[in-house]
């Protein structure tokens, strides 16, 4: 026996097996035999919403898997959807809505049905909302801050088959008195089936926690156009319901994809690779330098800058209880020191229009409230020399060393200012780059500040407790009927003001302490009044006043505009996705809000 005899047969056999398997490989998409589980021309691949293994599909759980929860309409549906292109609420389960001072009511579409044939009625809507009242731990509990009662009755409706329709009325909570927020949650609350869930709850003696352990992943009772087919750690597969009641809203047509598959990737660049290879049709992730992928068939809403439609702002929240951050001049100097052009270009791959000061977007539906004159007069733009001057005039002195690097800074009393830190999650590349650019600019102006990258869990934990000097945060990201009011509310409101160390979910920088002698009551009164104004002129004045206060006080420093969602798609297998030249829906992934309409309009180009 020779050593050679030992391995030759073994490795030869292994090699042959491997070659055999490879040569019989199936193509990336279709097999030759035609026995494909999910034909490419009938399947839409979308990704970016599910991270990690799917855990549950129970709509009463806090963090269910895609497409349950969140703003997805594929399985469970909301009353109405908000179209950010025209500012209108569009019908779904509710046909229309009416609003007066005390009550907002909706008329339900009597054609709505569940997948087991049971009609979708007002009882389901009331049940869905009442669950939030009965169980404070339920995901819909928050709506009860804005409403005080939900009732149902019947009204005459000439357009419905039976001549009657059901109406659900929401009594606006007098204390909060915010009808805009009520409208917001018309598109945020998904209606769940009373007949099924009530029964399950009763079997468990009304124990919500026990019910939350149910996964609801086998033939769930849904009202939407798709239902759950299967799932694994690699993907979630949805199947079209051919008996979807909402066909009637689309001239009796069904959505084009028979299957929607959400692959679950484990690294960020896989979205980009899959899009370029035509294995992914739509993604909602941040992909840098998207114009380099254009020749691979990857497209965005705009074909050039800013590629995405901006709807919100990423900002630096400032902890105004700490010196020297309690000095408004210091804050304004910081705002002048940041090179916003660099942020846009390097950190955000040009995905934003040029940043203008203030909290109102200078475009879209908010443009009517934007005042160029105010911005010119009060706004802080990138101006390094002005930043230095402001600091000097306010009494700060910065000491640089021989290399031109900042050593330290002295406050007006001559004391050394402790090094400040910007908190941000480590690993979010675009956010990290933004912080680095901000730090660089501020240091050049003489402000002693450093990046403070921490683990994401620490970041989320510290955000509400103000355990930071500055923190990067993007509040109020969704395009909803209540913008720009919600953005102002999330930055300026003192309604739930609590000292540092306790939790606040808006105005985390503790601006405008109501117990302080310098408290400005105008801010909160404007915030309270705006949602109830119907006179456009009065609204404009109110917003202008708020925005001027914001620019003068600079409690937060906006850094860049960002879209509601990153919307990028591949034209390799499907075409007619909405974009700027074909804007039949706003730029939303077709599982979300009004964007779902695209599922009916896209065409397969795959063979």
């Amino acid at each position, binding site marked *: *026996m020779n050593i050679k005899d030992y391995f030759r047969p073994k490795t030869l056999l292994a090699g042959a097996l491997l070659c055999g398997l490879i040569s019989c490989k199936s193509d990336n998409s279709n097999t030759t035999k035609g026995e494909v589980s999910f034909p490419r021309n009938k399947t839409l691949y979308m990704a970016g919403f599910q991270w990690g*293994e799917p855990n*549950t599909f129970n709509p009463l759980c*806090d963090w269910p898997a895609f497409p349950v929860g969140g703003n997805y309409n594929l399985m469970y549906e909301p009353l109405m959807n908000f179209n950010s292109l025209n500012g209108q609420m569009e019908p779904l389960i509710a046909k229309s809505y009416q609003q007066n001072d005390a009550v907002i009511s909706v008329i339900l579409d009597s054609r709505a049905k569940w997948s087991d044939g049971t009609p979708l009625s007002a009882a389901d809507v009331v049940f869905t909302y009442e669950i939030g009242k009965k169980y*404070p*731990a339920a995901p819909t509990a928050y709506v009860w801050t804005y409403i005080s009662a939900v009732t149902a009755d019947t009204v005459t409706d000439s357009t419905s088959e039976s001549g009657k329709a059901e109406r659900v009325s929401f009594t606006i909570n007098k204390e909060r008195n915010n009808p805009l927020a009520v409208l917001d949650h018309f598109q945020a609350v998904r209606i769940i089936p009373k007949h099924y869930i009530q029964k399950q709850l009763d079997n468990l003696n009304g124990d919500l926690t026990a019910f939350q352990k149910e996964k609801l992943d086998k033939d769930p009772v849904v009202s939407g156009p798709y239902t759950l087919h299967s799932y694994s750690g690699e993907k979630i597969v949805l199947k079209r319901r051919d008996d979807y009641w909402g066909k009637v809203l689309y001239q009796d047509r069904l959505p084009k994809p028979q299957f929607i598959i959400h*692959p679950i990737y484990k690294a960020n660049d896989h979205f980009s*690779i899959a899009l370029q290879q035509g294995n992914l049709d739509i993604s909602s992730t941040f992909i840098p330098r998207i114009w380099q992928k254009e020749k691979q068939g990857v497209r965005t809403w705009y074909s050039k800058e800013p590629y995405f439609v901006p709807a919100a702002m990423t900002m630096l929240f400032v902890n105004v209880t700490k010196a020297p951050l309690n000095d408004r001049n210091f804050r304004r100097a910081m705002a002048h020191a940041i090179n916003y052009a660099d942020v846009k270009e390097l950190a955000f791959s040009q995905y934003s229009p040029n940043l203008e000061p203030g909290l109102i977007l200078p475009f879209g539906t908010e443009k009517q409230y934007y005042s160029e004159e105010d911005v010119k007069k009060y706004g802080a733009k990138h101006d390094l020399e002005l930043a230095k001057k402001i600091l000097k005039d306010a009494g700060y002195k910065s000491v640089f060393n021989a290399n031109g690097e900042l050593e330290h800074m002295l406050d007006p009393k001559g004391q050394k200012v402790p090094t400040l830190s910007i908190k941000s999650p480590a690993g979010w590349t675009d956010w990290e780059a933004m912080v680095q650019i901000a730090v660089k600019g501020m240091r050049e102006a003489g402000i002693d500040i450093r990046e403070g990258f921490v683990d994401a869990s620490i970041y*989320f934990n510290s955000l509400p407790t103000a355990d930071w000097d500055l923190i990067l945060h993007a509040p109020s990201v969704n395009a909803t009927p209540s913008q720009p009011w919600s953005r102002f509310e999330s930055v300026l409101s003192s309604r739930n003001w609590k000292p540092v160390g306790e939790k606040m979910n808006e105005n985390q920088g503790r601006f405008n302490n109501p117990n302080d002698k310098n408290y400005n009551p105008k801010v909160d009164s404007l915030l309270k009044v705006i949602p109830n104004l119907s006179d456009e002129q009065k609204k404009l004045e109110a917003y202008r006043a708020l925005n001027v206060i914001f620019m003068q006080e600079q409690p937060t420093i906006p850094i860049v505009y960002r879209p509601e969602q990153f919307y990028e798609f591949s034209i390799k297998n499907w075409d007619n996705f909405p974009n700027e030249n074909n804007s039949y829906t706003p730029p939303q992934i077709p599982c979300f809000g009004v964007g779902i309409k695209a599922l009916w309009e896209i065409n397969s180009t795959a063979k």
Partner: protein
Amino acid sequence: MLKRYPTLYYISSRAVWYFITFLAAVTINFLLPRLGPANPVDIIMARSASGLDTKTAMEKEEAYLKGFGLVELNKDGSIVRDASGKPVQSPLIKQFFNYVKMCLKGDLGTSFLNYPKKVTEIIAGAIPWTLALQIPTIILGWIFGNILGALAAYKRGVFDGVIFPSALLANSVPFFAFGMLLVYIFALQFNLFPAIGGYAQDLMPAFSWEFLSSAAYYYVLPFFSIFLILAGGQATGMRSMCIYELGTDYIKYAKWLGMKEHKIVFYMFRNAMLPQLTGLALSIGTMVGGALITEMIFSYPGLGMSMLTAIQGNDYPLIQGITLLITVSVLIANFSVDILIGFLDPRVKAGIGSK
């Protein structure tokens, strides 16, 4: 009495030692995830509590704390509170005994981050892929590397001069970087192999030819990213061992005796292989580390990524479950190898301790 059966004595003494190590490992497994300062419920609450008023948020937090067994409960099921009204957390000892009790029942707990999925469910779903990727790769790499190393040691000359530095170079490459390089060259530039996934995305796992051949195709790059480097390491190790053996007296004696060459080589191989076997058992432990990065680079299904997210999210039950699994596997593997050595190594049979 045991001394009369040296092999038995050897095996039982090893068994005792492994059991003690197992107990210590379980304790460490329990403590390690709790090293961090953040309470996992805090993390979950930070995400779910935005928009809730204080009272509602508090009730939600209690529901979680109760569900995860982190707080002391009164007889009626309500939470014990201290003077300032905050829930009293269960002492570590109590949590530990709870944990051991549940493990013995086979229940590894419920994951915090993937609530309400059970840990056993998560592991059972993902582990076949990790095993399928790692085990053949490790075994084949081991076999191939050792044979190559033995050959190099035996033949020397030009063969050795080429094989040895190449194997060493292969072993020096950080294997995750190598994986990314493979993706860049073979998947992106030349489009020969897929860059993402364990199987074609339009298939569901099944025991069909279609699925298996797709899985094999997707297997190639991840396989080679680990295999080449592993083989390199084994080859250099084996080569040193074999050269050492070749210089020993008994080999020289056998040569002078005129023993047939292939018989000498056989003995050399067998003796040099023993420490390599121990190394093989230990590399089961590195399996998860290797799996983690390979999964990240290829979006390959498996347990590694779940482990990383679990660790970053302070998901105690999942972390404990996975590390327990790793520890048990390594112990079993080592124990099996020890038994195997007990039968193969003549020194054990002769009653001479082989520490």
